[in-house]
């Protein structure tokens, strides 16, 4: 599928903000099934300084600063991407234990002397927003039964989160800790993506948090997906010989060609779409609109 994406964010301040610094993850990255054909970032007012680089996980990140007094800030990311569908003929008889990267929280560590890929390994460890919680392992182990295939276990976890947690935008904020989400049994896609990622890591599996978009209008005859008019988040699991498998607990499905990947990391903190600090400015208000339109 080809998509034309437009992600607009407006900030309005009640008072003049003399300076702001921003770090954004808005450019769709290249993946095995995704190509980014065009990308541009429009910023108003014009930044005094702008630069881009690849971050630790190979995501494209951009930094800019606005250094003249401003009362509003508009950031528009436009791109066109090409996403191919998942290979449906996934081998599904790999037991999940064979995919374990790290022996988990409660057990003694990885044996010193064994070679390990560090970029891979750190995705099996807790991260700032996904701390090691006993509850995660308790929850996950009901899906990760001994010798179950990795795909079966994943699908089971996906279904359970979808059914046992209620989508509720008012229940949590961007900073609600994971343990509270577990207590509330409510949240939004960011919470569910963190939850799924944390569950996998508690079993010693490598998992990453994926930030991206969903197509805005569903294919004919299919229902509109939750989270389609804002940025979305889901989880990606390392499945040994199958490689990385993306799944979306918010919508209870595998992430197919309706999903556009922007960036991945250990958790939301690594790939936050717009991260900024400013001085002054009083109160501020934010408006976001996302449009992911299929092309042709």
């Amino acid at each position, binding site marked *: 599928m080809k998509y034309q994406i437009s992600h607009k964010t407006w900030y309005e301040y009640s008072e003049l903000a003399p300076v702001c610094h921003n770090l954004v993850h808005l450019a769709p990255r290249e993946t095995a099934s995704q190509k980014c054909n065009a990308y541009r970032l429009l910023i108003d007012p014009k930044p005094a*300084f702008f*630069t881009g680089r690849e971050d630790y996980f190979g995501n494209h990140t951009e930094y800019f600063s606005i250094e003249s007094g401003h009362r509003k800030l508009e950031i528009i990311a436009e791109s066109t991407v090409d996403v191919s569908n998942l290979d449906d003929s996934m081998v599904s008889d790999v037991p999940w234990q064979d995919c374990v990267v790290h022996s988990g929280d409660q057990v*003694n560590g990885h044996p010193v002397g064994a070679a*390990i890929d560090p970029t891979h390994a750190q995705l099996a460890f807790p991260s700032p927003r996904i701390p090691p919680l006993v509850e995660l392992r308790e929850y996950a182990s009901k899906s990760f039964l001994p010798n179950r295939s990795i795909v079966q276990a994943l699908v089971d976890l996906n279904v359970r989160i979808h059914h046992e947690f209620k989508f509720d935008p008012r229940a949590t904020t961007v*900073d609600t800790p994971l343990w509270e989400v577990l207590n509330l049994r409510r949240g939004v896609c960011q919470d569910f993506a963190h939850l799924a990622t944390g569950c996998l890591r508690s079993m010693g599996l490598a998992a990453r948090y994926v930030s991206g978009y969903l197509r805005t209008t569903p294919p004919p005859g299919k229902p509109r997906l939750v*989270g389609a008019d804002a940025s979305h988040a889901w989880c990606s699991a390392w499945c040994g010989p199958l490689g990385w498998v993306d799944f979306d607990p918010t919508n209870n499905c595998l992430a197919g060609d309706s999903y556009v990947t922007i960036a991945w990391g250990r958790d939301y903190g690594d790939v936050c779409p717009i991260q900024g600090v400013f001085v002054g400015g009083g109160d501020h208000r934010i408006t976001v609109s996302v449009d992911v339109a299929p092309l042709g």
Partner: protein
Amino acid sequence: MCELQNGGIISSVRTRVPATDTSLDAELLRGYELAPGAYDEVFSAPGVLRPAWKLFLKGAEKLTRTEYMHRWEQAQRLLRQNSLTYSDLSDSVARRRPWELDGLPLVISAEEWRTVSASLQQRATLLDLVLRDVFGPQRLVRDGVLPPEALFRHPGYRLPFCRPPESQNSRMLQFYAADLTRAPDGRWWVQADRCESASGAGFALENRIALSRMLSDVFRQCRVERLAPYFIAVKELLAKLAPHNDGDPRIVILSQAAGSTNYFEDAFLARYLGYTLAEAGDLAVRRNRLYLKTLAGLSLVNVLLRRPNSEHLDPLEIADSGSAGTAGLLQAVRSGNVTIANTPGSGLVESPIFRAFLPRLAEKILGEPLSMPGVATWWCGEPQACSYVLERLDELIILPAYRRRGEPVSQISRLADMSRKALAALIQTSPGNFVAQEKIVRSGAPAWSGTQLQPCYVALRTFAAAHGDGYTVMPGGLARISTSTAPLELSLLDGERSKDAWVLAEGPVEHVSLLTASEGDLPLRRGGVDLSSRAAEHFFWLGRQSVRAEALAKLIRSAARRLTSEEQVDRIPELPHLLRMLAEQGQIEPGYVVEEIRKQLPSIEKQLPTAAFDEGPPNALRATVTSLVSLASTVRDLMSLDSWRIIRQMNDDFRPAAGRHGFLDLLDKIDALLVQLAAYAGEISESMTRTYAWRFLDLGRRLERALQEAQLLRGMLSTDSGSEPESLETMLEMLDSVMTYRSRYGSRFQLGAVLDLMLCDETNPRSVAYQLVECVAHVDHLNVGVQGDHKPADQGLAGSLLQTVRETDVVRISRQFEAGDSDALNDLLNTIGNMLPDLSDVISHRYFFHSAPIQRLADIESKPGARK
């Protein structure tokens, strides 16, 4: 796995040193008891001095104990008075100098130091290579040399510190410090590594200055290695680190906020090395470069010598550590526009978990063993090590594996206090979170407890700075001593003292100086516009508080004098005015003004002194003095030593003598305080260069004085009796204008004449008009070169204040007042009293960058998937 290598024999026999050594009179050490079970730094056997100490004692041969004590007291006094790093402000423990100096040095032979020095260089090199790897290619984890936990569970491992391939070969550890311990077998061991900011070198230097002055004869005779060459190397290193080096890089010491333990050390180093001292709020990133906010605008910074921990450098990239730091700083570093030493992230390897792996890392990376072993350490995350540790819990110290600099020691103490069973259970639930370290009995040395010698246990902090391809080691260090054998991490600030460490030279010692004679003509500089706006603000408030303290002291003195006079209290007409003003200024309860209530309150003779010395209420005189001292301490790197000495003395002296809260004591103390405030004022007017620092200080003083005088007039003239001769004389007394008045008018007191002298006479340096003339001159100077149609607000306001006073017809409003119509006078005094605080606000808005708290762009609406 580390083997236990510490095989010291522990004996419990205490050996008293005989009165005389075989060769010389060791009177100085008489009565010193060797520490049991430890290596003794001074004696190799009872009565047998180690060679280095023989030299020291020979140098000190002529020193009697009395003379030694005398010099020691003098040194203590000097340290207290002059020292930048010494503060005993009672309001904050953190401000205290952490380590008091001991009067005896730790003497180390040249030969021994060679080994120590080489080992430190090796260790610093190793730690730097480990850092480069973990924030770079991470081969050590990939190859299984380091367990992934060491990084990925480590709270100090932050992705923004990872470096792009093009900079992975540059050094990360510019400054390194190690805490050494000498085991009973006489070998030095590394107890802990300090890689985050390697602080303490300033304290070592300060100790050296004090002790080499106290024992100058001994110091010269012993040929002690100087510390200056090390600091020259530090300066060279920092200058070389500057990107786009044009020969005159701006180097700034980034301190933790004033009030942190290291602040005074930083101020001291800034002065000694000639760098600017800044806090995060003084810095700003613009167009991807780092700047210091000064009065003249933004001034480019090339190198930052940093004190705060890495995760507090940039709130943009490290979003979970609050608002500390300078947004955009890490990107500026990444772009190569500013260098930070140590490189952000460097503190990672000082955590206990790394100590367990250093022997293996040395073999792997350097291909050689560590030449100075670290105290044996086991990481419980390794199953074998864990069971070994659990078997020997009594002999080991358990530490949190990921402990970082600045974290409270309470966690370690808690572990130390746990029962064996509870500790074992805790380790078993999450073994990877703990390391075990062998207990070592530190070496013993004599410490001077004022009158006698006391055996103490020594830990030596040593310092290294990057130099060429390797490191250069400071010959000496900061020796810390304690009477307990517990590891020093447990009692870092608690009743500890420090010693200067003397490394004996092998040959003659060269004299070097940090003062360099630069080639070519120095470009002449004047005016000091690169004063940071924070320092300008502190000077302004220092000026205000110093005058406020003076005005308050005089008011209290005037009241106290009258209350202690022979006159019947109710026959002193001006007393009610004074009491009312004291009440208005919050010095006494308002009830004292009303006679009926006064009788039910504790007597004012008791109340007033108690209130004056009270630290609590911010208006109290003592609290004003404290605030003045705090403000001065934040700018003392910019103050003359004499000014600081006066202020320190004020802080020490203006306290009630034990148990004495009487009126007479109060009068004594207030007289002394006023003399000190006058001395400080003299120092300002006679010795301070007319830079912006002076200008803001003086502006603060003028503004406050005008305000105090307007308040005084308002208070004294609030009722008709205010124009009675006694009241008028009191006003003149408080403004030091009695003499002038008498020389003009004799003993006839009239309101008009008094008001003219106090309000309008521009030749009287105590008049309101005089203060305003000076204020106008200051703001005019600050606005030189400012263009535009409108006068800047500060200039406008100061000008119209002066105009108001100049246009006042004092004769007319005095007559009206005496005739019972006080409106005109009240209006005038109210106008002045209201406009002055406005002027102060305008000045602070205009000149002081208010580092407004930063905010984050984040909102519920931006949360992925938050909208349905």
